[in-house]
């Protein structure tokens, strides 16, 4: 009945190495609920929070707990791509609608789409595809060296960048992969080919912080410009960085500096409640809330009508998303603006200022969906880097 609360599961990470992102996600979602007084589409929300510790096996148990024990009707989560993949089968079997606030693995909405799964954030390569073009056409770089985290997110985001950069006449002359838990980037910085126009880095978590600091210490800052993936200079860690990050150019579907009323409201809220600018994770969770709200409004709050709710979810259009207009493509992935951003200091704090906007970018960029999906998924060696120099 409509009087019953809507039961929402939230699968996040509160312990272990990924807890920082989990906390930001929780902040974003809590802000969303607070702004609405815990009411969506006229119904109260009962939130069940579960901690997966960033371990796939626990993710699955927690998912089961949410579905089988807490009887949730929709789930927001999980955080990491491998967590989402670990519960992929279960989501299908349990037929539970899931809105992903963070997991960016390409295939989740490409070659292995899941009818019960939609995404509030983009794919790993969604922002780097325009970025590669930008680097070649606007920045006029010809030769670029790449360093990335040696895991799927790194591989995919680098692949997108490499593909469009080389298609626009650039050359990737060096590609280095550093292990996620690398003790020290000195080894990698020492290998950078000095005869490049720029270095593109793709890091997640705290690695961007470490790398950019050491890049400066080894005297490369100011000599070779640094381009970065969205997460390497995300607002979530930018707050911990110093001047060494100034001038880093990156591409992402969000920046706390986006100038629209919805985002101003969001950023103010985050600063009021949690004393920080939102970044990747907070935005993802907040936006997942918006998507849920929009879909519920479409079905007048009747989440119990699962087919109708799922249909509404997959056709959702959010006008008031902090990123601007947001809609989902047929595979459940957002079509949204991608922003080219530059780290600057404003009012004493580091921010990502927007220097260019690519409107309505899809996960397939300018390629045809059919051709895109026919090719194998982006990876460490795909597309092949044909211009490497040794």
């Amino acid at each position: 009945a409509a009087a019953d609360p809507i039961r929402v599961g939230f699968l996040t990470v509160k312990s272990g190495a990924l807890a920082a992102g989990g906390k930001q996600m929780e902040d974003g979602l809590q802000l969303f609920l607070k702004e609405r007084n815990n009411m969506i589409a006229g119904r109260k929300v009962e939130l069940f929070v579960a901690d997966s510790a960033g371990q796939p096996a626990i993710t699955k148990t927690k998912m089961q707990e949410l579905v089988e024990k807490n009887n949730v009707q929709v789930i927001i989560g999980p955080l990491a791509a491998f967590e989402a993949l670990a519960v992929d089968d279960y989501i299908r079997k349990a037929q539970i609608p899931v809105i992903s606030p963070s997991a960016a693995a390409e295939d989740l909405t490409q070659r292995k789409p899941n009818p019960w799964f939609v995404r509030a954030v983009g794919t790993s390569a969604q922002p780097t595809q325009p970025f590669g073009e930008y680097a070649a056409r606007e920045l006029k770089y010809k030769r670029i060296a790449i360093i990335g985290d040696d895991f799927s997110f790194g591989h995919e985001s680098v692949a997108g960048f490499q593909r469009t950069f080389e298609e626009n006449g650039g050359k990737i002359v060096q590609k280095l992969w550093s292990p996620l838990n690398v003790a020290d980037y000195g080894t990698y910085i020492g290998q950078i080919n000095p005869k490049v126009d720029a270095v593109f880095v793709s890091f997640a978590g705290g690695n961007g912080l470490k790398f950019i600091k050491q890049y400066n210490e080894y005297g490369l800052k100011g000599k070779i410009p640094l381009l970065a993936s969205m997460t390497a200079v995300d607002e979530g860690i930018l707050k911990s960085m110093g001047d060494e990050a100034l001038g880093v150019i990156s591409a992402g579907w969000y920046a706390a500096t986006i100038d629209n009323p919805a985002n101003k409201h969001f950023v103010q809220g985050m600063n009021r409640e949690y004393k920080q600018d939102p970044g990747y994770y907070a935005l993802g969770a907040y936006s997942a809330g918006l998507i849920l709200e929009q879909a519920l409004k479409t079905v007048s709050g009747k989440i119990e009508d699962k087919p109708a709710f799922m249909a509404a979810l997959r056709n959702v259009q959010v006008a008031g998303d902090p990123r601007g207009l947001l809609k989902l493509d047929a595979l459940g992935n957002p079509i949204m603006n991608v922003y080219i951003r530059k780290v600057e200091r404003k009012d004493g704090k580091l921010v990502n200022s927007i220097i260019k906007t690519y409107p309505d970018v899809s996960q397939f960029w300018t390629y045809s969906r059919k051709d895109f999906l026919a090719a194998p998924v982006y990876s460490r060696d795909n597309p092949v880097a044909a211009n490497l120099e040794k």
Partner: protein
Amino acid sequence: MKRALLFIFIALLAILPWLAGSDYYTNLASQALIAALFALSLNLLVGYAGLTSLGHAGFLGLAAYSSAWLMLNLQWDQASAAAAALAGSTVVAGVFGLIALRASGIGFLMITLALGQILWGIAYRWASVTGGDNGLSGISRPHPFGFDLGPASHFYYFTLLVFLLVWAVVALWVRSPFGASIRGTRDQPRRMSALGFNVWLIRWITFTISGFFGAVAGLMYVYYQQFISPHSLALANSAEMLLMVIAGGPATLAGPVVGAALVVLLKNIASGYIDRWIMLLGFVFLFIVLFVPNGIVPGVAKLWQRWQQRRRHKEERA
């Protein structure tokens, strides 16, 4: 006494899905049994042979990845994939044994740790085969004799069957003359060779068999999760298996089972109620080691004995 306990325990396990009430608890029980399988297999090494291994999750990975890969990429059927995975993992265990048994004590621990890390690194890095950190998903559960393992209770009974089988085999094996010699090599390796035992060979066989049972557990793990990624092979996972054995009571048959149940339940249930559940787990381990330093099962058995003695004393006096 022991027999009665065992009987009650098995009876409880048999009716557990009815007691559980929801699939969630049945699934938890399946997970605890699978963890117990790992702990049982590791206990052969740690408890009976006195060789502390920090690489046991490697066998989980070997079995899980190879069966998953064979099914997903070569479209092998379940049974052949399982057989091949077990055979392959056992062979690798044999080879690892050759390397690791060059040392004993902390050296053995380090070599097994390193071997485990190497398997982890391969799983992580050889993405074309293993899917990298995204892992392999879409793995189906087998249909032994047409029995559908999809529903939670079905899978639970299947797991229980495998568990009881392995447990019985292990129980018989450690009682056997060979089992006696394994314990001998743990306590006095030098004397054992002087008595005519081939200490190295005994250890190697134990290592290989432990690897085999680890692979059995690995298969059950991947059937349950229907997913495998490098996280399952991580050092933390090997350490967790070791902690189960030590907390429950090494070189006992019940210890690893108790330890596994404890850790699985704490991890999955306590984490629903408190945020700082890892800290709680840490305190539970500390508590165990302080009050029953040889593990829960031996500790409780000792308390029980003492209590019995005291009762008898009282009766005598009365």
